[in-house]
């Protein structure tokens, strides 16, 4: 991304913020719970100096990463099996399609019953939906390996492990990475949701707490922090996958910084 692109991207954002500031500041838009960007910036500045802030960020970050890792490990593992075995797909695909659209928030009372107000409860609410993007994308990636590649592997009588590591994995990697990215953003969203409606910890709870305590500036501050955290995690994952799979990003892919 060139400096010019950066400038125009940030410029657009600044115009929006200025418009918001003018509308709220002039009293044209007057709502109790909609502060101006300037007030939110002030709230954000006091918020980050509070010792509890680091704990809240740490909790949500830990819940997101643990949940995402569990979802990715299970999802890619199961996805690889389903992608390489038509028989497994025949028996499991219908169940997956039934389970996939279930709203994870509906599991909050069940999760609470099982684990109480705890990190485990949060993880259940995170892993249940974050599993599917990793699983489905990995499955599609493995199932979509071109026939000529598998034919070549068969002609060379490659061992099962070699076939997996040298043929299937490189061919399926772009799809797997997409699944991992989708899972990551979903894991963060679900961590915040689980904290808002269930486990009273982390950024999600802080957001609701400040809303109830009539601090809309802090509430929007937390919204902003969650957004930035999502951007940071996605950026790190893209950077990490570029390092791990240098061949993968030769074609331009949709990234936040590739516009």
């Amino acid at each position, binding site marked *: 991304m060139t400096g010019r692109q950066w400038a125009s991207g940030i410029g657009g954002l600044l115009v929006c913020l200025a418009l918001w500031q003018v509308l709220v500041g002039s009293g044209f838009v007057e*709502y*109790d*719970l*909609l502060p101006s960007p300037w007030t939110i910036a002030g709230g954000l500045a006091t918020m980050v100096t509070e010792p509890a802030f680091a704990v809240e960020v740490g909790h949500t970050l830990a819940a997101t990463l643990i949940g995402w890792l569990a979802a990715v490990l299970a999802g890619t593992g199961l996805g690889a099996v389903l992608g390489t075995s038509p028989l497994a797909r025949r028996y499991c695909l219908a169940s997956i399609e039934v389970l996939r659209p279930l709203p994870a928030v509906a599991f*909050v*009372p069940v999760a*609470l*019953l099982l684990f*109480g*107000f*705890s990190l485990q409860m949060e993880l259940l609410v995170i892993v249940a939906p974050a599993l599917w993007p990793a699983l489905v994308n990995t499955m599609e990636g493995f199932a979509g390996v071109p026939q000529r590649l598998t034919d070549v592997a068969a002609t060379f009588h490659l061992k099962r492990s070699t076939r997996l590591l040298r043929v299937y994995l490189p061919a399926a990697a772009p799809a797997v990475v997409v699944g991992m990215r989708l899972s990551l953003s979903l894991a963060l969203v679900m961590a915040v949701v689980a904290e*808002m*409606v*269930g486990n*009273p910890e982390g950024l999600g*709870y802080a957001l*609701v*707490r*400040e*809303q*109830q*305590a*009539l*601090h*809309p500036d802090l509430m929007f501050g937390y919204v902003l922090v969650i957004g930035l955290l999502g951007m940071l995690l996605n950026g790190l994952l893209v950077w990490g996958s570029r390092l791990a799979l240098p061949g993968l990003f030769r074609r331009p892919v949709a990234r936040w910084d590739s516009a």
Partner: protein
Amino acid sequence: MKGLRFFHRAGSPVRSPTPCLAAALLAVSLALLPAAAPLAQGVTPVKTPLRVAYVPVITWLISWVAKDRGFFDLHGLDVTLSPIQNLSLLPPTMGRQFDIAASTAPDLLKAAASGIDVVGVAGETIELTANQSMQVIVRPDSGIRSVQDLKGKVVATPTIGAVMHVATLHWLRAGGVDPNSIRAIEVPFPNMGDQLKAGRVDALELLQPFVGQQLAAGNVSIGNPLLSVADPGLFTFWIAQGAWARANPAVLERWIAALKDARQFLETNPTESRSILAKYTRLPDAVAQRIPFPTYDTTLNASQLEVWAKVLRDLGQLNGPVDASRLVVTPR
């Protein structure tokens, strides 16, 4: 490790008598431990640990006063207070994660009807004409003047199925309005004023301090649904697991005594109590200083619950038989 491997190879390990003796000694000393524990307790009285869940709103203030002013300690209780946003989620956690928790009649009765062993153990607040915490608020130009005018309107409620909305549905029914004719949408209290201003909703089920804010902004009240249930009527109280409550009447007695002390402190030291309120709710000081106190009352009896059971039954919200007389376990 070597020894272990040797035994494995040998097939049948031969045990020396020393470990057997050590094990016997360990067993004897372990058996003696419980006998020694009361002796130790006799020397230094151990406070009873209590895990308590509350919602960070003024309703639960006397428990925070009891904690911060040392009334729980005074009565031999070691209380851990945990804030929870939604008290509807609490009944299933009783006896597992929490010993005592904040609740309301619809939450307790619905939990009991679905087979959860949960009972009311102490009162917290009551609602009465002389001191009201809830109001239904509308815009002055809305043309809505009474409960009858709410027919077909959109009503903002904090939680569908919770105490304030159940009371509102009962109020509508008592006023001759079909409860199904209104559309209820869930809105957090702080957002309700903006939703009313934007015209997205027609009426608000509001609680203090938000009632005061909206009245000051020029909006008007058309009544208090809680008073249509009973006046004075049970609003909020404390619950516990039934088996635990029956086995621990002395602990409950101390819990109630501490809350009573806290209520007395609140009456004589309102300023200090308000700073405790600001600490637990994080409300801005200006709001915390002006918010009216609800009427705290630690008594709780089955007839108060029975009124709510009838309300829920009439609204068709109670599936399964519930004997309200068995749902209160509190020391006399």
